[in-house]
C-alpha cells in the first residue's frame, strides 16, 4: 500500500475511536490509589480475582520507578501477609512476586513448607519451582530428598531441575538421565541440569543415549539439541546455518509425532 494511502487508512481508523472518555477516566489513577490497592490485596472479604487485580496494579506501579517508592515498603509487607492467605491462587501470586524480589522471608517460608514445618503454602513442585529461580544450593538437599521419596512426576522433574545448581548431584543426574524406566520429564530435566553442571559428563551420557537404538526419541531430541548448542559458538555463523536446518527438522518431527 502506498504510504499516503496507508496514512489515510490509519487516520480513518483512528477517527472511529471511542473518544478520549475512557482515557480521561484513567487520568490520575496511575499514580494514586496504590495504598488502596495494598489494602485490597490484604482484605480477606474481597474475591481472589479482585485481590489479584489489586496486586497487578501494584506490580505495574513497580515499573514506574520513584513514583512507587513511597509505598514500596507497605507493598512488600502486604505481600508477606498474603503469603499465608487461605486462597491457593493468591498465596502463589504473592510468593511469585516475593521470590522475584529475592525476599528471604518468602524463601524461608517455602523451604519450611517443603520440610513440613508449618503450613504447606504450595504444592511441592510449585514451591521447588519458585526456589529454583534464585537458589544457590540452599534447597538442593530438599530437592534430593524429594527425588528419592516421591513418585510424583512434576515434583521429581522440578527436583531434577533444582539439582542443576548442586555440583554434588552430577552422578545422580547422569543416572536419571539414562534410566529408561524413569519418567521422560525427569530424564529431560536431569539431562539439562547435567549439561549445566558438567558438560563433558553430559556429552558422555548423551552419546550413549543417541547410540542406543532402543532409547526414546524425546530424550534423544533433548540431548541432541543441547549438544548442538554446545558445539556451535554464537559467532560461528557458518556452523549455525547448518545446525538451524537440522534442529528445525528435529522440532518439526517431534511436533508432528513422526
Amino acid at each position: 500500500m502506498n504510504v499516503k494511502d496507508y496514512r489515510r487508512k490509519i487516520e480513518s481508523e483512528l477517527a472511529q475511536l471511542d473518544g478520549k472518555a475512557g482515557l480521561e477516566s484513567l487520568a490520575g489513577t496511575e499514580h494514586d490509589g496504590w495504598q488502596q490497592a495494598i489494602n485490597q490485596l490484604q482484605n480477606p472479604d474481597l474475591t481472589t480475582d479482585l485481590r489479584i487485580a489489586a496486586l497487578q496494579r501494584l506490580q505495574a506501579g513497580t515499573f514506574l520507578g520513584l513514583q512507587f517508592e513511597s509505598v514500596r515498603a507497605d507493598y512488600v509487607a502486604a505481600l508477606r501477609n498474603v503469603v499465608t492467605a487461605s486462597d491457593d491462587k493468591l498465596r502463589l501470586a504473592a510468593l511469585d512476586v516475593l521470590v522475584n524480589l529475592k525476599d528471604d522471608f518468602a524463601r524461608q517460608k517455602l523451604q519450611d513448607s517443603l520440610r513440613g514445618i508449618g503450613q504447606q503454602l504450595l504444592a511441592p513442585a510449585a514451591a521447588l519451582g519458585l526456589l529454583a529461580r534464585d537458589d544457590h544450593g540452599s534447597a538442593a538437599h530438599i530437592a534430593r530428598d524429594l527425588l528419592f521419596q516421591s513418585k510424583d512426576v512434576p515434583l521429581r522433574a522440578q527436583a531434577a531441575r533444582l539439582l542443576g545448581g548442586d555440583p554434588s548431584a552430577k552422578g545422580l543426574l547422569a543416572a536419571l538421565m539414562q534410566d529408561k524406566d524413569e519418567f521422560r520429564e525427569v530424564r529431560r530435566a536431569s539431562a539439562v541440569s547435567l549439561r549445566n553442571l558438567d558438560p563433558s559428563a553430559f556429552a558422555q551420557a548423551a552419546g550413549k543415549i543417541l547410540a542406543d537404538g532402543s532409547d526414546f526419541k524425546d530424550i534423544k531430541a533433548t540431548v541432541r539439541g543441547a549438544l548442538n548448542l554446545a558445539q556451535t559458538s554464537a559467532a560461528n555463523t557458518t556452523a549455525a546455518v547448518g545446525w538451524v536446518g537440522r534442529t528445525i527438522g528435529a522440532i518439526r518431527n517431534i511436533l508432528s509425532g513422526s
Partner: protein
Amino acid sequence: MTVEIVLDATAEDGRAFLGWAPVKASARLKNPSPGNAPVPVTLSNGGTATGGRVVFDTKRSDAGRDQLPIVLPASGQPVEFWVAGQFQRPSIAYADAAIDAIGPDGAALGRRELMVRIRKNAVKLTADERDRFLIALGKLNDQGNGPFRSFRDTHVEDSYYEAHGYPGFPPWHRAYLLDLERSLQAIDATVTLPYWRFDEPASALFAPEFLGMPPANPSEGDVIDFPYGHPLETWRTDTTSDPIARRPRYNIANAPPSNNVITQKATLELGDNFPAFRSYEGRPHGYAHTSFQGPVNNPSTAAKDPLFFLLHANVDRLWAFWQWYYHRTDPDDPKSYALTGPPRQPNNIGHKLDDTLWPWNGDTVAPRPNFKPPRGAFPVSSLVTRPGATPTIRDMIDYQGVKGGPSLGFDYDDVPFELHSTGPVS
C-alpha cells in the same frame, strides 16, 4: 553484457538487507557490448511471488515505484539510484527479494538478491521465521553460558533508573532491543526481533513450538513445558537451575483486559506530545508485564524471560507508530522528546538528549550503576553506520533517518518510512 548492482546495505558476507528506509545503490555495465552506446535498463522486482518486494527512486523519497528506467554508460560508470523495501511486502527468507536489471529487449542482464528484513508481529511469522528466531535466541543463551547473560545482567535493579521512570525509558529500551537484535543477527542474519502485539489475541505466540505455556495445573509449577528438542528447552539465566517460568493471568485466546493493557488506539490518544505519550510506561507497558505470573512481572527479573524482548519490541513499535503518526522524529522538537516530570538526580544524567546510554558508555561514575557494565561497546552493523559505539538518547529517536542520514537498520511491519516537514499532522 551484464549489469552489476551494488547496495550500500550489504553485509560482510555479501548479502544485502533492506528495510523501509531508502538506501543508496548503483548499477553499472560490467562488460558492455561493442559500440560504446549507452544501454537503457529497467530495474524491477525479481524474487519470489510471495517474497519481499522493493521500490526504486532516483532520489531519497517515500514514494518509490516498482520499476525504474535508467541508462547505463558504456564506460562502466555506475548510475546511482535509491531502493527500499516496499511497505507491507517484507521478506520471509533471504533472497526471496531481488533487483533485476532488464535490458531493452527484455533480457535479464543482472540480478541482486536481497532480503527486506523487517520486525514482524510474532503471530504472523512463518514457521521457518519463528524457528530461526528461536534457534538464534537459544544459541545466544547457550544454556546460560552465552552472551545473553550480559543482556539479562543489564536490566537489573541496580540499573533501574537508567531505563525506567524518566524520559529515557523509550530510547534506552530501543537501544537495548537493537543490541539484542544485532547479536541475534550475528548468529543468523535473517532474524529480526518479533513483537508481541499485546492488545490483540496472540495465542500462537504461546503455542508449544513458540514461547510455550506452563502445565495446566498450577500445582505443577510455572516452568514452561516446551516440546523435546525445543531451542529454549535448555534456557537458563541467573542460576543453573532456573528455566523459563511464566503463567498468564488472562485467557490467552484473548488479549489482556484493555482497561489496563490499553489498545494501540488508546495509546496514540495519550497525546501528540512526548510528555503526554510517555505515560505509556505505566499503561500499557507495566500492565503488559504484570499480565503474567513469573519473573517477567518484576522489573529486575523480567529480562530473564525471552517474552520480555517481544513485549518490549511492541512497546518500541508503539513509540515508532506514534512517532510516525504525529511526525515526532526531530530530536530537537520538544514534542518529540522532552525532560519533564521529576528529574533524575543529579542533572538528569542518562536522560538528556545528548547523554550517552549506559551500559554501552562503560560509565561507572554515580549516578550510573557502580558495577561493571555487562555490555561492551554497541555492536557495529556492516549495513548501517548508526548509532556508533556509544549511543545517545538523540541517536535513538529518528530511527529511520527521516530527518536525514542512515537509519538504525530496523523497521516494523506496520510503521512506514514517510518524509515530512517538522510539525504535527492535521
